[in-house]
């Protein structure tokens, strides 16, 4: 058995799609996003139910609510110490020290969630603003309690820590500055209001439940006089709560790192359930339906470093009841006797092998959702109104529903082509050749280096570099682009940050071996500011690789002004600029040519011969080398000596022949269009030759003569 330290964090009511690493538009979760890049992120993880106590019971036992003792009972239920087996007890039986720190009174000891824990800290510190009897604990207090425990115990037996945070859960009241973080921001959107309030026990559609009211003003008897009605405000505060939680996770990770136990720690971040933020006209509630707004939760698992698991994003649908068998599998506990309903995800994380076929469901008393490969099928359940354990809304539960859950509902869809930002899916092969070749070329210089990729855009280039480099940071000014990049490209040595390349948000100086800046110089007016930032961050004798189009060929000759380019350079200007900052500069040229490659079948040749051809008067003829002129320059600059042969000629060969494919496709389109034109021309000719047309033409001429229309014309 392999005893690893385990930290399992459950954030109450956190939807997956409001985290950056799940594609959210707001920068709510930089720490979790960063952690996700060293982890396996499950894109579609579903909760077994949609309110806390049943879900927690299911998470701790890996049994669906029907098969653990709490079932759907939110307030009076408890696990049965004689029959239920929790993950904590299993870990305890292997010698783990187990500590739980929770932040809501619903998880207090009467639930028996404390089974197996050496320490189960359920001490609440405050009441909710609209429900004085509901006791909770601020996340920072929970974190501190954990932190104190960790400080004392981390050196002893391996530990299992269960951390439950409640700060995302409504009412969305956040400490400063999180109470103002997203209010009136760029994503605030159009105003939308809900101006009706429902009670908490009978929530209604298009109403805000009483317990969620923000900024309420009440009379002496507790009746609400005023409250916030703007939906945008509530969602901004919900997101603010996520940011607050993110800082707590940052502090937790910092402590684990400080104690030097982070790398080998198994860290799991998930949520008990999601939250409706207006879906199906449900405002700020959960537990009412099993639609994805309430069931789809984040699941991020950072494996211990020594297992060498590649970080990745997994599209397979999973359930959060899979967490318990996954933990037990990680430590080598044979759990077959426990008859768990979840399955271990370790194999899926390690090799991509799908778990055995099983049914994933999310369920409440009145509704059940079956999660299929693409769709979620939701069906009503028969309920016994006299024995309901939680709120039931017939209107929401009575219909059969089918939801295509993999359809992108996030705010971050693929960007539209603006004519400027490169995307690897672009059709034009020439543009692909240019960009890919540049990064491939740069890849030769980054082996085991720490690299900064300026204006990394979509992130494909940084990802390519990360294959060779020790560490790569891609930076771009466009937030959504960076968040998409973070979501799309996973490597443990790759990180994306938002920032301007003329004011780079990295405080440490001289920390990069190589800085790359492809096709960004021309987008900057103040080149010296960019170069100063490069010099500030580049190590002594580090290498700067920059590319920019040649103004002569790119702008002057075609008489074209790219509206996105603020300052293009001629070769001489580029030389002067680079020489002001670097002692040695080598400038290469780049252009896409149509080429054939003859190469030895035995391997790579060290000596490459190059033959240039040119098409003149429809005939290709061999031509002189000086006629090969670049469209782009690529410079290598450094204060260290640079040998001329540091980089030889290099070729990018498209073995799929996309240029010709494109040509064939265009030719085919043209041929088809020509055929249509010919068909129309023939039809027109037949009309001109017909007696009817001739008679009509004659009649028109006679009419014009009579009316005198053409009189005076030659």
């Amino acid at each position, binding site marked *: 058995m392999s005893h690893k330290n385990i930290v399992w964090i459950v954030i109450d009511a956190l939807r997956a799609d409001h985290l950056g690493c799940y594609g959210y538009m707001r920068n709510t979760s930089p720490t979790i996003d960063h952690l996700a890049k060293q982890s396996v992120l499950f894109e579609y993880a579903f909760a077994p139910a949609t309110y806390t106590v049943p879900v927690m019971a299911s998470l701790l036992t890996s049994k669906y609510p029907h098969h653990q003792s709490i079932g759907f009972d939110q307030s009076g239920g408890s696990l*049965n*110490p*004689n*029959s*239920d*087996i929790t993950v904590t*007890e*299993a870990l*305890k*039986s*292997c*010698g783990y020290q*187990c500590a739980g720190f929770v932040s809501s009174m619903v998880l207090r000891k009467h639930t028996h969630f404390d*089974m*197996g*824990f*050496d320490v189960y800290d359920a001490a609440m510190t405050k009441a909710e603003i609209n429900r004085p009897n509901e006791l909770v604990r601020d996340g920072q207090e929970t974190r501190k309690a954990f932190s104190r425990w960790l400080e004392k115990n981390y050196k002893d037996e391996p530990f299992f820590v269960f951390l439950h945070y409640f700060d995302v859960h409504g009412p969305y009241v956040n400490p400063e500055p999180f109470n103002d973080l997203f209010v009136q921001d760029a994503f605030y959107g159009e105003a939308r209001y809900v101006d009706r309030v429902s009670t908490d026990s009978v929530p209604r559609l298009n109403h805000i439940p009483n317990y969620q009211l923000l900024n309420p003003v009440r009379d002496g008897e507790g009746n609400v006089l005023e409250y916030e009605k703007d939906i945008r405000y509530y969602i901004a505060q919900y997101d603010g709560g996520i940011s607050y939680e993110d800082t707590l996770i940052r502090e937790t990770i910092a402590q684990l790192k400080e104690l030097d136990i982070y790398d080998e720690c198994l860290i799991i971040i998930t949520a008990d359930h999601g939250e409706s933020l207006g879906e199906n006209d449900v405002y700020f509630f959960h537990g009412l339906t099993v639609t994805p707004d309430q069931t789809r939760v984040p699941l991020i698992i950072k494996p211990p470093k020594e297992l060498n698991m590649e970080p990745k994003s997994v599209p397979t649908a999973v359930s959060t009841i899979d967490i318990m068998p996954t933990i037990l599998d990680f430590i080598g506990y*044979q759990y077959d*006797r*426990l*008859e768990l309903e979840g399955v271990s995800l370790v194999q899926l994380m390690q090799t991509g092998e799908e778990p055995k076929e099983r049914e994933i469901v999310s369920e409440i008393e009145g509704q059940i959702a079956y999660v299929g490969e693409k769709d979620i099928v939701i069906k009503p359940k028969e309920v016994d109104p006299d024995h309901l354990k939680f709120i039931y809304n017939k209107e929401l539960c009575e219909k059969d529903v089918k939801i295509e859950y993999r359809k992108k509902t996030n705010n971050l869809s693929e960007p539209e082509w603006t004519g400027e930002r490169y995307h690897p899916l672009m059709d034009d092969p020439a543009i692909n050749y240019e960009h890919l070749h540049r990064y491939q070329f740069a890849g030769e210089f980054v082996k085991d280096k720490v690299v900064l990729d300026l204006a990394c855009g979509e992130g494909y280039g940084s990802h390519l570099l990360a294959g060779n480099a020790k560490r790569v940071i891609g930076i771009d000014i466009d937030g959504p682009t960076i968040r998409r990049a973070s979501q799309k490209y996973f490597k443990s040595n790759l990180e994306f940050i938002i920032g301007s390349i003329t004011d780079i948000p990295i405080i440490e100086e001289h920390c990069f071996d190589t800085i790359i800046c492809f096709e960004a110089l021309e987008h900057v007016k103040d080149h010296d500011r960019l170069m100063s930032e490069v010099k500030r961050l580049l190590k002594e004798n580090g290498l700067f690789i920059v590319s920019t189009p040649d103004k002569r060929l790119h702008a002057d000759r075609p008489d074209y002004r790219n509206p996105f380019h603020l300052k293009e350079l001629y070769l001489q200007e580029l030389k002067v600029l680079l020489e002001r900052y670097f002692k040695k500069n080598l400038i290469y040229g780049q252009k896409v040519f149509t080429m054939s490659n003859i190469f030895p079948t035995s391997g790579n040749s060290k000596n490459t011969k190059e033959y240039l051809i040119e098409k003149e008067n429809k005939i290709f003829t061999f031509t002189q080398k000086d006629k090969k002129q670049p469209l782009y320059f690529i410079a290598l600059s450094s204060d260290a000596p640079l040998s001329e042969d540091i980089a030889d000629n290099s070729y990018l060969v498209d073995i799929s022949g996309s240029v010709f494919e494109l040509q064939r496709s265009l030719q085919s389109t043209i041929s088809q269009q020509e055929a249509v034109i010919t068909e129309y021309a023939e039809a027109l000719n037949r009309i001109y030759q017909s007696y009817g047309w001739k008679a009509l033409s004659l009649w028109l001429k006679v009419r014009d003569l009579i009316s005198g229309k053409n009189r005076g014309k030659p």
Partner: protein
Amino acid sequence: MLKNKVLSVHGVKISLTGPNEDDRIRGLPLKEKEKIAQEVISTAISGCQNPYVLFDGCKESLVALHLVRQIGNLDLRFPVLHIDTSVRFKEIYQYLDKMSRLWRFDLVTERNEEALRTLKIAENPADCCKQLKADALAYAVKKHHIDCLITGARGKAQKTGVLVSERDDYIEVNPLLFYTDRDLSEFIKTSRLPYCSLYDKGYRHIDCTPCTEPAEAPKLSSEDRAEIDKKLKALGYLG
């Protein structure tokens, strides 16, 4: 070999097979008693081919079982025997099943089927116990060729009993001989061992249902009571 075996703990001599009348033994700290118990188990089983642990779901046998696990580095290397009278609490049956799954052991259950067909349960408690427990155990020992049985026995045996008693066919090992009620509770609490919930309902000893006094449910669990006492003490109320 075991006959002359004597352990020495803090200057106190402890005989494995003879009576131990030195009162200092009972006053030893729990950690020392734990060491003695483990030493007793290790020594007793070292010469045996087929040791079993007796487990009836009560606190005593739970602690004995856990001590055996500790010797095996939390891995139970021996089969676990349950003598079933068939009239035990449903909570106990649930709990036995849970423990066998959680601690991953095969629970070997034996009953005196013959007696269960003819006997009037609890009419004559002494006879009932003899037939359903002692006879069933003797049958099980023979059936499974048990040569060493580790039990959680304490009680009356504390003064006069022996740690290892040689029977006709097997040796009986009683590692908890020196454990008091308090020791047991403390051991279970500090080791966070899962115990049957009947204890939280006020039962002190759990036997078969006809012979176990119903318990009055405590208004507070012992843990909550201890917590309240601690707070009151901090406030000066309990001195």
